[in-house]
């Protein structure tokens, strides 16, 4: 059983389109995150939800909208895709906001043409 699963794994789309990435965790964690990894492998936090409440919104363009329907799910919707949005997007989860480690999904590689 995959602990943190993301779909789709690969996404190729045209500029201007809208796309969504879904994430689910079966670890019973109450905190979930979206990270962006660029072509140089730098990891940048985008959003975090704790018990369905947004707690981190890290100066991400408002074309990106996260949504957490429940503690086990965190989705990312991107409007009007731009070339610079091409990256690997990782979902992660942790138990609370204490000292617990992150559990990552396998990533969703988004390519905008």
């Amino acid at each position, binding site marked *: 059983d995959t602990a943190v699963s993301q779909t789709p794994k690969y996404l190729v789309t045209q500029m201007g389109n809208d796309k969504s990435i879904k994430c689910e965790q079966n670890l019973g964690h109450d905190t979930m995150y979206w990270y962006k990894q660029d072509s*140089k492998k730098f*990891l940048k*936090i985008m959003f*975090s939800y704790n018990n369905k409440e947004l707690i981190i919104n890290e100066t991400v363009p408002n074309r990106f909208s996260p949504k957490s329907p429940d503690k086990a799910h965190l989705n990312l919707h991107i409007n009007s895709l731009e070339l610079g949005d091409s990256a690997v997007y*990782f979902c*992660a989860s942790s138990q609370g906001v*204490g*000292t617990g480690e992150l559990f990552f999904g396998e990533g969703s590689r988004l390519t905008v043409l």
Partner: protein
Amino acid sequence: AQSVAQPEDQVNVAEGNPLTVKCTYSVSGNPYLFWYVQYPNRGLQFLLKYITGDNLVKGSYGFEAEFNKSQTSFHLKKPSALVSDSALYFCAVRDMNSGTYKYIFGTGTRLKVLA
């Protein structure tokens, strides 16, 4: 502001030799430090963490890390490298002072173990 630095983009080591991947941190208050590994086309995997207690922390796959408060370092080590250890390694600190407790990652160090 809390931060971590990984001064080496790449570390090369021969199989069987000891390896060290460096990390230094800058935090106010007690540091909560982590190491993660990323294999090609995979998500990051947790290796080990330092929260409190013994300065030498043991983790997965034979890795360990030494917390050094005076040098503000948290270097990752392994006594004998394997080719399969070749991967991208990230040091991270959890910002316990911001109210959001976000993780701050270093820029990553690519480890290449040569047969």
